[in-house]
């Protein structure tokens, strides 16, 4: 459903993403790992439309989406969460979700209330529905990022380090939620440093370094490769 074809993005002389290609099938879950600065979030920005590629094309459901605004891509079915949560801090948790459902999901405001209540229940935020989002804890902010993205009723969900900074128990809760989302037929691309969380969800793994693809394939194989271990885990580096 998503084809990322020979895409590059440069900022001046820096190649943030350098000739990266990958495909995503319908219902598939792809993981992306790599050290900080490898260009992972830039890949998301290119897919979601907040940045334009310097070269290459991005197709979603067969159509070149290069000219679409971020909002149009969201309405087209690409939902994303941000690495650093951006809650609408002056609005309640419920209202935050309604924004996604109304503008991203194209629903009438009143019609969206039921869906939003259901999504808040799924991510475990029901009891905080009327709390102002600015007062949430980190875990709840991450849940809210997820809830809002789900409210847009995405076909493809981009998760950017959604487990980062959480405790093990919180990560387990989140993995359960993400697996349930997958089971409902949503395709997922997940950038994550917490590898064990990632491995319990994804079908395929892409490893990146300095804007380039290191390798991609079955998660266990990718993780076992010496170059991945060297770059990513710092194992085997000649000190």
């Amino acid at each position: 459903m998503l084809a990322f074809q020979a895409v590059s993005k440069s900022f001046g002389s820096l190649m943030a993403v350098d000739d990266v290609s990958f495909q995503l099938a319908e219902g598939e879950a792809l993981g992306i790992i790599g050290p900080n600065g490898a260009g992972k979030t830039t890949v998301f920005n290119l897919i979601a439309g907040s940045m334009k590629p310097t070269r290459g094309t991005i197709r979603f459901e067969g159509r070149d989406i290069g000219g679409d605004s971020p909002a149009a891509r969201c309405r087209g079915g690409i939902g994303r969460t941000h690495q650093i949560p951006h809650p609408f801090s002056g609005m309640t948790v419920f209202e935050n979700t309604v924004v996604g459902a109304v503008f991203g999901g194209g629903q009438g405001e009143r019609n969206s209330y039921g869906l939003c209540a259901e999504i808040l229940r799924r991510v475990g935020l029901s009891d905080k529905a009327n709390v102002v989002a600015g007062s949430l804890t980190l875990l709840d902010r991450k849940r809210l990022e997820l809830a809002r993205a789900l409210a847009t009723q995405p076909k493809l969900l981009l998760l950017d380090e959604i487990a980062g900074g959480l405790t093990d128990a919180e990560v387990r809760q989140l993995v359960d939620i993400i697996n349930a989302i997958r089971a409902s037929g949503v395709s997922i691309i997940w950038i994550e440093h917490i590898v064990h969380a990632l491995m319990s969800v994804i079908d395929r793994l892409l490893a990146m370094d300095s804007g380039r693809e290191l390798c991609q394939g079955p998660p266990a194989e990718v993780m076992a490769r010496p170059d991945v271990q060297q770059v990513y885990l710092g194992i085997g580096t000649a000190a």
Partner: protein
Amino acid sequence: MKGTVVERATPLSRGFWLVATLLILVLAAAPWWLGRGELRLIAEFAYLIALAQMWNLLAGYGGMISIGQHAYVGIGAYALLILSLHAGVHPFLAVPVAGLVAAVMAAPLSRLVFVLKGPYFAIGTWVVADVLRLVMANVPALGGGSGESLTSVIVGVPAWEREAVIYWMALAAGVGLTMGMYLFLTFRHGLALTAIRDSEAASASLGVEVDRVKLLVYVASAAGLGLVGALIYLIKLRISPDAAFSIEWTVLMIFIVTIGGIGTIEGPIVGTAVYFLLRYLLADFGTWYLVVLGAVAVVVMLKAPKGIWGWVAHRYDLHLFPTRRRMRLGTKAEAAAAPALDTVANGAG
């Protein structure tokens, strides 16, 4: 979930609306029981709320910090001048038309200033306003640098009618623009606007066309300012480029909004009241008046960065114009438990 109920009003807001409606009715009848001086004062109070509300819409909700909104006060004033003095339009009719003129001007001007971001946008808006001032000063047909008097277009109207209609228009502008903004915020687009206020990046990735909403807000703000600008100069009756395109208008709007509470409907009303109070108390102290005004602004910005109303709303969870959608869950048991849910919200809010 089926049967999800959402409500906005609170007992306090219902009480406030009752009092506010009565107050507006009493004020609407003021020309029959108040003198000219008092009417002018209330009219000024009302139009300053309207001006401040338009800057609040632009900066507090749209996130566009402009220091050149006096451009549209001036455009409104000159639209009034051209329409009533030179084109023979009745001055009372020229006031709303001036709002339309400002909106039509705002669309192309927005293309100019929207290219700029942040502080560059702010300076850019100021430059646009100053260029307009200089252009008007160089049109001899409109009085050039010294401007023109409007007295001749209004002398035909009987004194009481003149005072009353201008007063009603000012009252309508203050109440109407405040209510218009409130209604807008309760609609779908208001949700988008509040979202943009809090995070542009998140709004865009949730399907909100940020640029389109911003343009709409910029044009709406200009329309309101143009209308009020025309009204102000229908009261002053003398239009000159230096006065109509004076940055003092924008400074006043910024002062009122930041003191009262940016990004709230209540803020500009509170801010206008504070401004009037300070002006009244310090009327005999000459230049010290401005020193105190500046000091108050500095203290409020340090102690309560969200303004007086922002502080009150946060401290006491008080909302006279409730835009918040409070969710109640469907079943009877849950509905009965909903007050507890509200308490949670209040406690954390």
